[in-house]
C-alpha cells in the first residue's frame, strides 16, 4: 500500500485522523478498540488510494474526495419523505423492511423482525454478542484495503444481522440504504451478517435515490460469515442520484458445505460506484455464485472488483457479470480467482460480457486467474460488443419499433443474469429498473 494520494486529498485525510483522536475516548470493548487502532494505523500510513495502486488503476478518486465533508449530520434523526421508502419497496414481495438513513438504523421506520433465532440490531448494540466478538473484523485485510481500514477505525453506525443455527428466515430481510444530506457528507457505515450452521436466509439491500441536495460519499464495509451447511441469498440493488458516491466493500467467508449467492444489479444515477466483493471458500464442498448486472449511463463510473479465493478442495464458484454501457459511462470489471495449492477438484468459472450502447462509453475488463493446484477446472472469458444489427432488423421487420427493439435486446442480454434471481418479484423489479434505466 504505497503511492497514495494523501497529499491531494489532505483535508479529508486530516479530518479522519482528527476524528479518530476524538473517538478514542469512547468506551468500547477492548477487542474492538484494538481493531480500530489497527485500522487507524493502516489508514494513517496508506491514506486514500491513488491511481498508482493497482486495484484503483481505473478510478481517479481525487475529484470525489476533494470536497470539504462533514462526517456526521447535525440532526439526530434525518427526515425522510415517506415516498422514498415506498418507492424502494419491491412490489408484491412480503419482506421485513429495515431502514438505514445515512447508516443509522431507524427503528422508527423499520419493521420488527419477530422470528426466533433472527436478530437485527444497530451494529454497536451488538458489540457484546458472542457472534460479533467472534467474527467482527476477522476476515477483512486492513493492510490491503484502504477504505476498509478507515471504516474500521471510524465507523459508528450500521447493521448487525444474526441468523442462529438451523433458523430458516421466514421472509426476506429488505435493507433500505437511504443516504441524503444538505451539506457534503462522508459516511462510513458498517455491517456484519452472521449466518449460523444449517441456517437459511435472504437479505436484499437496496440503495435508493433519496434526492440528496449535496454530495454524499459512502464508504461501506460489510462482512458476512456463512457457517457450515448454511445458505444465504444476498441481493444488492444499487440505484442513486448523481450526488451519491459509493465505495462498497463486501467480505464473505464461507465454511464447508455452505452456499452463498450474490446477485448484484446497478443502475444509472450514482456518480461513482465501486464494489469490492471478496469471497473466501474456506471449507470443502462450498458453492459460491456471483451474478452481476451493471447498466450505466451519463458520466457514471461503475467499477466491480471481485476476488474468489478457493482455499479447500471440491468447491465450486460461478461468476457472471454483464454490463450495459450507455452514454459516456465508464465501467470496470476486475475479477480475480485464486485456486490455492490445497484446493484440488475446484470448479471455477468466470465470465464478463459487455454491451456498448454509447459511442463514448468505455469498459475495462480484466479477468485474472492464479492457480496453484493441479487438478482443477477453471475457465474465464470476457467480451465487449455492440448491438447485433441483424437481430435489431429482425425485430423491426416484425413491426417492433426501434426503442422497444433495443429494450428487448438489452433484456435478452441481461437475461442470463436476471433468470438466476430466485425471487420472481425481485426479478420483475430489476427488469422494471432496466427499462427505466434505459429511458433515463
Amino acid at each position: 500500500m504505497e503511492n497514495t494520494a494523501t497529499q491531494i486529498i489532505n483535508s479529508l485525510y486530516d479530518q479522519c485522523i482528527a476524528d479518530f483522536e476524538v473517538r478514542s475516548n469512547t468506551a468500547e470493548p477492548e477487542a474492538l478498540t484494538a481493531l480500530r487502532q489497527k485500522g487507524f494505523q493502516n489508514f494513517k500510513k496508506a491514506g486514500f488510494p491513488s491511481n498508482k495502486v493497482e486495484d484503483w488503476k481505473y478510478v481517479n478518486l481525487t475529484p470525489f474526495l476533494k470536497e470539504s465533508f462533514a462526517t456526521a449530520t447535525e440532526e439526530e434523526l434525518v427526515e425522510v419523505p415517506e415516498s422514498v421508502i415506498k418507492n424502494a419497496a419491491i412490489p408484491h414481495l412480503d419482506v421485513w423492511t429495515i431502514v438505514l438513513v445515512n447508516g443509522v438504523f431507524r427503528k422508527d421506520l423499520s419493521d420488527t423482525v419477530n422470528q426466533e433465532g433472527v436478530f437485527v440490531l444497530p451494529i454497536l448494540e451488538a458489540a457484546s454478542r458472542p457472534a460479533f466478538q467472534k467474527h467482527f473484523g476477522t476476515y477483512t485485510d486492513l493492510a490491503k484495503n484502504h477504505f476498509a481500514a478507515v471504516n474500521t477505525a471510524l465507523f459508528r453506525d450500521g447493521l448487525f444481522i444474526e441468523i442462529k443455527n438451523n433458523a430458516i428466515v421466514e421472509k426476506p430481510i429488505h435493507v433500505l440504504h437511504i443516504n441524503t444530506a444538505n451539506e457534503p457528507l462522508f459516511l462510513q457505515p458498517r455491517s456484519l451478517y452472521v449466518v449460523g450452521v444449517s441456517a437459511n436466509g435472504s437479505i436484499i439491500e437496496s440503495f435508493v435515490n433519496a434526492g440528496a441536495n449535496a454530495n454524499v460519499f459512502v464508504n461501506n464495509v460489510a462482512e458476512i460469515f456463512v457457517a457450515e451447511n448454511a445458505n444465504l441469498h444476498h441481493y444488492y440493488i444499487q440505484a442513486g442520484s448523481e450526488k451519491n458516491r459509493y465505495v462498497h466493500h463486501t467480505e464473505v467467508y464461507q465454511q464447508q458445505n455452505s452456499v452463498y449467492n450474490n446477485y448484484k444489479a446497478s443502475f444509472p444515477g450514482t456518480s461513482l460506484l465501486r464494489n469490492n466483493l471478496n469471497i473466501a471458500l474456506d471449507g470443502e464442498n462450498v458453492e459460491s455464485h456471483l451474478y452481476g448486472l451493471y447498466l450505466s449511463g451519463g458520466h457514471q463510473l461503475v467499477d466491480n472488483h471481485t476476488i474468489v479465493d478457493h482455499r479447500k478442495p471440491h468447491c465450486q464458484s460461478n461468476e457472471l457479470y454483464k454490463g450495459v454501457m450507455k452514454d459516456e459511462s465508464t465501467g470496470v470489471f476486475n475479477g480475480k480467482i485464486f485456486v490455492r495449492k490445497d484446493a484440488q477438484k475446484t470448479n471455477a468459472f468466470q465470465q464478463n460480457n459487455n454491451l456498448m450502447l454509447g459511442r463514448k462509453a468505455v469498459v475495462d475488463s480484466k479477468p485474472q486467474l492464479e492457480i496453484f493446484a493441479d487438478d482443477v477446472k477453471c475457465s474465464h472469458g470476457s467480451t465487449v460488443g455492440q448491438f447485433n444489427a441483424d437481430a435489431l432488423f429482425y425485430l423491426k421487420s416484425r413491426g417492433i419499433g426501434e426503442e422497444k427493439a433495443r429494450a428487448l435486446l438489452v433484456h435478452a442480454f441481461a437475461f442470463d443474469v436476471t433468470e438466476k434471481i430466485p425471487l420472481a418479484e425481485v426479478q420483475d423489479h430489476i427488469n422494471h429498473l432496466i427499462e427505466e434505466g434505459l429511458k433515463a
Partner: protein
Amino acid sequence: MLSIKNLKASVDDKEILKGLDLEVKAGEVHAIMGPNGSGKSTLASVLAGKDNYEVTGGQVTFDGKDLMDMSPEDRARAGLFLAFQYPVEIPGVSNINFLKTAMNEVRAYNNLPPIEAKEFLRMMKEKQKLVEFDSALANRSLNEGFSGGEKKRNEIFQLAMLEPKLSILDETDSGLDIDALRIVSRGVNKLRSGKNAFILITHYQRLLEYIVPDYVHVLYNGQIVKSGTKELALELEEKGYDWLKESAPAASFH
C-alpha cells in the same frame, strides 16, 4: 397492392437491382426465380427496408403509399412480411413475448387495442396447429437452438400470427427436407386468400409443386427478363437459365 417501377438499388456502390418492374395484386402468388447473384435476396431486403441497401432509383408503392419512405417497422405494421432466408437467433427473447409485442405494435398502428391474453392464446394454438409448430418451441427463446427446418417453420408461424397483406418468402424452401417443405407449403396454402398476396423467392421448381404460383418471373442481372405462368418454372428446371441470358440486357459492369 405492390407496384415496383424501374427499381435500382446498390450495396457498397455496386448496383445489384438495375431497373426492376413488378406488379402484385391481392390474391396473387408470384414466384421469382433466378441464378445465384441475380438480385433475388437483395429485392427481398430492399422491400423489407434493410439499411445497408441504397435505393438509387425507381418507385415502390404498397397500397398506394411510398414504401421506400417508410421505416422497416412501419412497413411491417402496414402489412408487409419477410420470411427470412436466415432467421436470426435471439437468446433471451422469448418467442411468445416477441410475438405478442409485434402483434400489439401492428395493432396499435392500425388503431386497435392490445390483444387480450385469452384471444392471443387461442390464436397461438390455432396457428401452431396450422404449421405443425411444436408448442415447446413456441415457449423457447426466439430461434435459439432451432434446426434449420424449425426456424423456417417459425417464420411461417409468425406469418400466420401477424396476418400480413403481402408476404415475401426468401428461399424458405432451401435446405428443407420434404416433410418440412410439405408442412410449410400446406401452411402457406391455408393462409392464401383473395385479400393477401405472396412473393416466393426460390431456386427450386420443387417448391412450386406444392405452392402453385399464378406467375413466375425470372430475375437475371438485376432485372426481370422473363415472366410467365407456372410452366415457365418447369422449362427453367429443364433448360437451366442460360437460354434466357441472351435476352438479358448487357451488364453495366464487367
